[in-house]
């Protein structure tokens, strides 16, 4: 038998092999650069002749060589369809599915053989067998703008100019100035003058900070070599340039790029977004800020799911699938005004457990109402942009009071972390957890309409920790199963939405949220305050009548302000004061604010004219007052007699 294991490479041999390849490439480099330059020029001419702008043509061809992506204007030679552009293929991929074509970069390879590559519509790739196997990815345009490409070209030209000025005989092609690397740096880096730092987005989806002295070196390391400084150094030494002059020249070349960043990419505030549909992270330079756009990374599914545990949890929390779908729909919906969900669950139901699952997945950020208030005030907070990056849900635990800031939690929030950029971040579903009702949200008088319109509610009971399956398997095992399930469902739903494209995903998400709110909206459980206005006005009126007629009313202030004028017209003088006194006497602290806001509505409902408070004569004296409409306290009884009093 033939024993392949007899042949292997020692570490020294491996190193020797790498060194041989490197040396061979160095030897071939000038020729390679010349061929590449000629190739680009030839291809640019071809595109320009077909009507493409020269800058765009050069950008697309150069980027294409580096990225293996093919862009809209590039031409493909299909066996069946002849010469077509990438844009034409992208417009109708099905037409070209499984069709063979020539290699995109070397169409004349093997005498124009148009069977060496094949297009696959499902992934929009061309698989070529020329020079081994290689995939080309079809795209509309490079992930860069014409502006950044132009800046990169200018930086490249400046470096070339500096080199030629100092070393007129240098072959610039051998310096390998990379417009692509410069373009990547210009596209992905911003300068913060206040902090004196470059911020650059890595392909790993991380925003790195570099100080100015090490900026060039590190930016080149991450994004690709900008130019071959070693070659310049060696060449300059041969030209008898002093070491100090060489260093100055190289620094000068580096400064061309850094200065471009400082001048054009200087921003002091940023927005953060996660593009669920993008393949690579990017920075969008806007007039006043920079928008950092990360890509979505699937949630990590750890461990296996235990079916018994999963069934048990679904019995305990029957709405879990609805809950997961609501979170993901809120992630894709453009309008998240109605993505508020209140968990009103008794103690030990498992609120902490559920929050723990979201937190473990890095899918939530927990804030207190105080922190939210501080964020809206623009105060420094102990939260950074990174906390929000993978967050699908904003969680508020121990929900006790609802303030106006809660309503402002819609789609974005600005945070000002200490010593960092002020950042606008997106927020999606808002989850509120409490064991008891929140009086300022739900009172005897009902729920303010603006909250009814926003909030859905889950009222759940049962003690998770006392469930037999939970006790038998232990909390850790139970948690791991739910964690794996939620992560799996998140990833699956996100994939489904992504497959719809942005517009389709937004539409589906909006439809789901509407359905969810129709099933779980607070309006299904609680009365709207607007629907209670008549009842409140009636109660108020009856108390005024009692105060005005009986003289027995407990509250003397109110008695003083209710006047039964001649003709039995009932007036309320000092109505604002009277209402305040009445609310204070009849409602708890948390409801008073809400009812005070409704004062105008109640006065209008109360008044005979429908206008609320107006200046009118009461007992002959003009006063700002309300004349209470008769029908509230006047009735005709069955015998046709007028009866005045309190009618509930």
């Amino acid at each position: 038998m033939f024993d392949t294991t007899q042949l292997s490479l020692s570490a020294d041999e491996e190193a020797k092999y790498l060194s041989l390849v490197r040396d061979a490439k160095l030897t071939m480099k000038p020729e390679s650069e010349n061929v590449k330059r000629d190739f680009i020029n030839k291809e640019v001419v071809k595109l320009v002749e077909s009507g493409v702008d020269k800058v765009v043509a050069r950008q697309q061809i150069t980027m294409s060589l580096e990225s293996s992506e093919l862009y809209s204007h590039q031409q493909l030679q299909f066996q069946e369809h002849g010469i077509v552009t990438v844009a034409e293929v992208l417009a109708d991929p099905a037409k070209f599915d499984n069709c063979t074509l020539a290699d995109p970069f070397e169409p004349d390879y093997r005498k124009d053989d148009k069977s060496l590559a094949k297009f696959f519509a499902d992934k929009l790739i061309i698989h070529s067998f020329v020079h081994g196997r290689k995939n080309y990815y079809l795209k509309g345009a490079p992930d860069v703008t014409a502006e950044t490409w132009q800046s990169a070209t200018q930086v490249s030209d400046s470096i070339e100019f500096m080199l030629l000025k100092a070393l007129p005989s240098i072959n610039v092609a051998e310096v390998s100035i990379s417009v692509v690397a410069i373009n990547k740096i210009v596209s992905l880096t911003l300068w913060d003058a206040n902090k004196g730092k470059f911020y650059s987005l890595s392909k790993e989806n991380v925003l790195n900070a570099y100080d100015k002295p090490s900026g060039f070196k590190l930016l080149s390391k991450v994004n690709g070599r900008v130019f071959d400084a070693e070659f310049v150094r060696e060449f300059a030494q041969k030209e008898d340039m002093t070491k100090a002059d060489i260093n100055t020249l190289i620094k000068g070349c580096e400064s061309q790029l850094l200065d471009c960043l400082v001048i054009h990419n200087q921003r002091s505030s940023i927005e953060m977004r996660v593009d669920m549909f993008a393949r690579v992270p990017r920075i969008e330079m806007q007039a006043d800020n920079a928008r950092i756009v990360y890509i979505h990374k699937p949630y990590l599914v750890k461990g296996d799911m235990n079916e018994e545990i999963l069934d048990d949890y679904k019995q305990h929390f029957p709405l879990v699938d609805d809950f997961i779908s609501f979170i993901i729909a809120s992630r894709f919906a453009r309008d998240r005004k109605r993505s508020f969900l209140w968990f009103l669950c008794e103690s030990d139901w498992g609120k902490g457990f559920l929050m723990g699952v979201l937190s473990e997945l890095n899918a939530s950020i927990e804030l207190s109402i105080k922190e939210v208030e501080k964020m809206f005030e623009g105060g420094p907070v102990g939260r950074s942009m990174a906390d929000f990056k993978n967050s699908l849900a904003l969680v508020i635990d121990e929900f006790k009071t609802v303030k106006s800031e809660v309503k402002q939690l819609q789609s974005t929030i600005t945070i000002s972390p200490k010593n960092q950029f002020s950042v606008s971040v997106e927020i999606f579903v808002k989850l509120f957890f409490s064991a008891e009702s929140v009086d300022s949200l739900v009172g005897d008088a009902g729920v303010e309409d603006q909250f009814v319109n926003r909030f859905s509610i889950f009222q759940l009971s049962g003690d998770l920790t006392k469930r037999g399956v939970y006790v038998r398997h232990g909390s850790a095992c139970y948690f791991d199963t739910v964690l794996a399930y939620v992560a799996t469902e998140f990833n699956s739903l996100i994939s489904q939405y992504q497959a719809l494209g942005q517009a389709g995903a937004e539409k589906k998400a909006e439809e789901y949220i509407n359905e969810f709110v129709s099933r779980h909206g607070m309006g299904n459980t609680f009365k709207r305050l607007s629907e209670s206005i008549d009842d409140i006005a009636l109660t108020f009126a009856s108390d005024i009548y009692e105060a005005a007629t009986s003289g027995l009313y407990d509250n003397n202030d109110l008695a003083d302000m209710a006047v039964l004028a001649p003709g039995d017209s009932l007036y309320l003088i000092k109505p604002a004061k009277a209402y305040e006194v009445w609310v204070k006497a009849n409602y708890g602290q948390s409801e008073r604010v809400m009812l005070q806001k409704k004062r105008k509505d109640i006065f209008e409902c109360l008044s005979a004219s429908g206008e609320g408070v107006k200046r009118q004569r009461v007992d002959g004296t003009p006063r700002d007052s309300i004349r209470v409409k008769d029908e509230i306290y006047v009735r005709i009884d069955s015998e046709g007699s007028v009866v005045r009093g309190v009618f509930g």
Partner: protein
Amino acid sequence: MISSSFTLLTSTTTDLNKKLSIVEGEIVKSSVAYMSKGTYETITVNGPEELNVFLDNLKSNQAVSIGVCNKGASGKIKSKKSKQKGAVCRTKDNFDPSNCFIFDLDDSDLGIDQVIPTLCEIDPNLKNADILVRVSSSYGVHKTGEQPNLDSCGYHVWVLGVKEPKDIARYGKDFAKRCWLKGFGKIIISASGAMLERQLIDAAVFSPERLVFEAKPTLGDGLEQLERLYIIQRGNCYV
């Protein structure tokens, strides 16, 4: 005698052999590198002579792969998109390495009698292996009445009776690196300026599911072919 197994692939939709024809006075070669529908069958041969005869008899819609299917000795092949039940895709998941492999030498200036000695310079242990060297299927194709161009030629070198099939992929990579150490490596420049690493052998052919085109080519009008040459080495390392 150690038997060796590989897979016979028969396409039901297209030919899998090379096609040569005269276009504008030039001989033009094309091949279909994709097989999306057909059948597979595990074939076992006893030695290089039997393998040579088998490969000589391949039909135009047949090719082979050096691996064997792990879903059964024979069956149907489908494309990745197909939902056909019971059929398998020709992917690495479904094909395992078997006990043979090939070295693919493209555009070589070696004569056929120099191939095994040259490979043995890189791995002397090959002297003990069962080997079949076949010139590539398009060898010696020429216009009728003219002399064939034999300046360069491609070879498929079948090595049989491999002890550790799972080691073949690693062996292929290390063999390619060792080519460089022995002076058989070079950088070539593509038409777009890319620097491509090349050595005596193609480093990408050690995958079990990959098609190996061995069937006779289809020749267009005005073309004829020399008889395909082969060399067999009988190893002596049987245990």
